């Protein structure tokens, strides 16, 4: 027992030191990908007995494997709906360990419609396993996967030629597939390719070297994964430290927290803050355990500097002699990830390192056919399409090319309306600025000169996340128009809308203060209000107007000025008797002839026949449907 305890201690001491390999598996159900992963997990003894029990139960109901055999693929399909469809449709992460390494597998589906899933899974991978069916060899899908792997800058590829058992473990078949693949891959940028003949189903060369293929002298798949050298994949040359968080626990400590994206930093090193360009020296590298002398990727630390420099999130600490590009204008390979096609006129949010700003796509240079690698012209991208674009951002970004530095070369685009991550990009080596097309061009300058706004209503509406429109409330005096207007304003504001109320006393106090209450002046007043609404609506703002507006003809005029599609008429449906109770003073004066032009007393009120909503004071709840519609 005593000896045993010592063993587990030794085991843990050693095990704590092992490193981490993140890998991507690409392939479809037919390639036996799930079977391969299932076997890796199973044979590396990660699976506990009760998970196996559950597996045997599931196999009986929906399994695809032959009777009596374990369907390894079932271990992997996570979500219920997907299990029923018999396909894996998202990125699923799997974990297993050997005594040399811990492995994280990003398991992604292989069909073309799942390109975005593969891009997602591959973004953090050190290595990709590309599965090929020995019976079919290199097919379109193999080429597509290899292209995506190269696009993502994954440096190691295992070409796993599977189902060798079905081609009699033939060396000839293997060699010819490898040759095929290598001739294709020379066009791409993948430094390390390792072909391995396997049978996932039978277990040949997966964990143990196979006796069925004596002609193959190399490592088994797992041996290769355990030994492949990935330490050199990090960029240790170019120090980049995007500031994530400024730590100020007390007046004497101002720390800049972040992750070392690349390069190495030592105490005492001279550094520069960008974009300010201010220089200082590293005073300390702080961690929870105390100060350390140096930090390297991907460590999360906190730096303090000798001088009091103001640096905030989104800025970057670098070394003065080795700086990234600072620019608003760059080229990138973009992958469209959204179901909704790209609207090239849209302004997006871009998130790059710890920076968020706005971005627009100035130009689409070309799109790439992921199957043939051919380039063609395009004016927008659909889901899963990939191509080269020119981007301009509001704020300058601090970047390197993705090829040189993944962490400062990658970005995501976010749709400002849906907040979805709609595209991801990889920055290409910076070109001379003048060579890049931009959309603030001469035509735009000319339009501006002629007094034309360069910002469209649509762009404004997208920024505000709403449609500019007018809610016009009509009704008798005392019917509760103004109260409804302010209730609506509050509710819409709470929903995140930008909204303005216009009502009688407010307008009469300023904009229309010279006007009287004669019918012509009332018409003039409402005409002015309608034009104010028109201007505000064109800016994307919602206006809520509370005016008696008793004449059908004037309401029609107002609607014509504002525009039918932006106009909603709300009628306060209260009887004259009830209104009188609410504003006794006014109605008494009107009946005594002290004031004129009070609808319902000395002038008529046209009850609208075409009101979009009828609201009663006693039932404001009815506006909820209106608010939902907005």
């Amino acid at each position, binding site marked *: 027992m005593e000896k045993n305890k010592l063993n587990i201690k030794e085991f843990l001491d050693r095990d704590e030191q092992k490193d981490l390999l993140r890998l991507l598996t690409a392939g479809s159900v037919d390639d036996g990908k799930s079977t391969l992963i299932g076997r890796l997990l199973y044979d590396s003894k990660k699976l506990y007995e009760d998970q196996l029990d559950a597996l045997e139960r599931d196999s009986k109901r929906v399994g695809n494997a032959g009777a009596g055999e374990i369907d390894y693929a079932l271990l992997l399909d996570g979500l219920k709906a997907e299990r029923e469809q018999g396909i894996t449709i998202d990125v699923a992460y799997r974990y297993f360990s050997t005594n040399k390494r811990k492995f994280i597998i990003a398991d992604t589906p292989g069909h073309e419609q799942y390109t975005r899933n593969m891009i997602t899974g591959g973004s*953090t991978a050190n290595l990709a396993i590309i599965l090929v069916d020995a019976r079919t060899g290199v097919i379109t899908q193999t080429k597509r996967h290899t292209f995506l792997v190269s696009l993502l800058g994954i440096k190691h590829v295992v070409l796993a030629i599977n189902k060798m058992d079905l081609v009699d473990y033939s060396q000839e078949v293997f060699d010819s597939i490898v040759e095929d693949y290598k001739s294709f891959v020379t066009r791409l940028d993948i430094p390390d390719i390792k072909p391995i003949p396997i049978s996932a189903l039978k277990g040949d060369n997966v964990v143990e070297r196979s006796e069925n293929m004596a002609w193959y002298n190399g490592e088994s798949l797992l041996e290769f994964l355990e030994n492949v050298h990935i330490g050199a994949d990090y960029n240790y040359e170019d120090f980049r430290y995007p500031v994530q968080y400024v730590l100020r*626990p007390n007046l004497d400590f101002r720390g800049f927290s972040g992750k070392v994206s690349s390069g190495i930093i030592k105490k005492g090193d001279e550094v520069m803050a960008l974009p300010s360009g201010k220089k200082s020296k590293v005073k300390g590298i702080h961690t929870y355990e105390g100060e350390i002398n140096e930090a390297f990727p991907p460590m999360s630390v906190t730096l303090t500097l000798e001088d009091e420099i103001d640096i905030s999130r989104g800025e970057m600490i670098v070394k003065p002699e080795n700086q990234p590009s600072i620019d608003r204008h760059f080229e990138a390979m973009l992958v469209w990830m959204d179901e909704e096609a790209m609207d090239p006129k849209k302004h997006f949010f871009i998130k790059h390192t710890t920076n968020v700003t706005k971005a627009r796509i100035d130009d689409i240079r070309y799109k790439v056919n992921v199957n043939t690698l051919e380039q063609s012209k395009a004016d927008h991208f659909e889901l899963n399409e990939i191509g080269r674009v020119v981007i301009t951002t509001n704020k300058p970004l601090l970047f390197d090319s993705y090829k040189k530095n993944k962490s400062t070369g990658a970005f995501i685009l976010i749709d400002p309306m849906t907040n979805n*991550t709609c595209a991801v990009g990889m920055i290409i080596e910076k070109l001379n600025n003048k060579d890049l097309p931009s959309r603030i061009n001469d035509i735009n300058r000319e339009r501006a000169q002629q007094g034309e706004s360069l910002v469209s209503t649509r762009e404004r509406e997208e920024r505000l996340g709403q449609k500019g429109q007018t809610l016009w409330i009509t009704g008798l005096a005392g019917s509760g128009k103004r109260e409804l207007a302010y209730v609506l304003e509050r509710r819409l504001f709470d929903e995140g809308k930008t909204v303005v109320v216009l009502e009688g006393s407010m307008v009469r106090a300023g904009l229309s203060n010279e006007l009287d209450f004669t019918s012509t002046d009332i018409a003039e007043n409402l005409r002015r209000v309608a034009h104010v609404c028109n201007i505000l609506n064109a800016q994307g703002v919602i206006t809520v107007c509370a005016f008696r507006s008793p004449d059908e003809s004037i309401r029609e005029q107002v609607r014509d000025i504002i525009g039918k599609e932006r106009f909603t008429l709300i009628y306060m449906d209260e009887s004259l008797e009830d209104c009188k109770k609410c504003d006794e003073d006014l109605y008494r004066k009107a009946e005594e002839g002290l004031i004129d032009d009070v609808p319902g007393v000395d002038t008529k009120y046209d009850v609208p026949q075409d009101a979009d909503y009828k609201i009663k004071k006693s039932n404001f709840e009815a506006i909820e449907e209106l608010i939902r519609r907005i």
Partner: protein
Amino acid sequence: MSDYNLSHLRQLEAESIHIIREVAAEFENPVMLYSIGKDSSVMVRLAEKAFAPGKVPFPLMHIDSKWKFKEMIDFREKYAKEHGWTLIVEYNKEAFEEGVGPFSHGSKVHTDLMKTQALLAALKKHGFDAAFGGARRDEEKSRAKERIYSFRDKFQQWDPKNQRPELWDIYNAKVNKGESIRVFPLSNWTELDIWQYIRLENIPIVPLYYAKERLVTEYEGTKILVDDDRMPKEFVDKAKMEMVRFRTLGCYPLTGAISSEAATIEEIVEEMMTTTKSERSTRVIDFDQEASMEQKKREGYF
């Protein structure tokens, strides 16, 4: 250059700290959900690490189902106090006063009212726009596909078909008013990683994880602890002292003990590596309907 290698634990640690800082920087009102379990204990330590030598800029919140082990509550109070955390404790008052509990209402009703509903109400009450949880992807099938930033709509629900792509270490933090995210900084950790890290870092955990002679009884096929006098007499009567420990901690009537002699972390790991049951299998709630964890997650449970 070969000196510049981080072990897998240090890589996981760095990744988690990066995630925690991103959330603190980009959200207005984050909270860390604290279950008092071993994963929570690791997550809490990672938060302390992320902001050292400063103080963590968000509170801890425990959703108390009122049926937790007594030792968990003692541990919670002590830990929060000693480490200077702001601790919020919330529970479903209405259901509690109605006497909802696993013995009388079954695990499904109890979990829904005292955990899921209590959590949703508490998040709403405080207006939290981001909530950290200690879930790991290796725990259970439906978690394997969940993002690190897991988006929740106005009704706090998860839609597994409509998740945002998540690439590199760039997290999309855009949410509209009323929407929120759940954040899982331990996504890439496995159970073994958690134990190794607890050992490496000397992280305090609730003593229930270690084997000891305890008074246990048979209930719905699992061995549960006689923790207070709310346990029906019929079960108390057949209780006996046994050497047991717990692999996960939750509500005492819903968390099965395992027979074990493992009284140190090393022994726990040793037992784990040779054991035949995966960790969630001692939880009664995962078995009450097929694909039950996914269902609960859609409804708002973590």
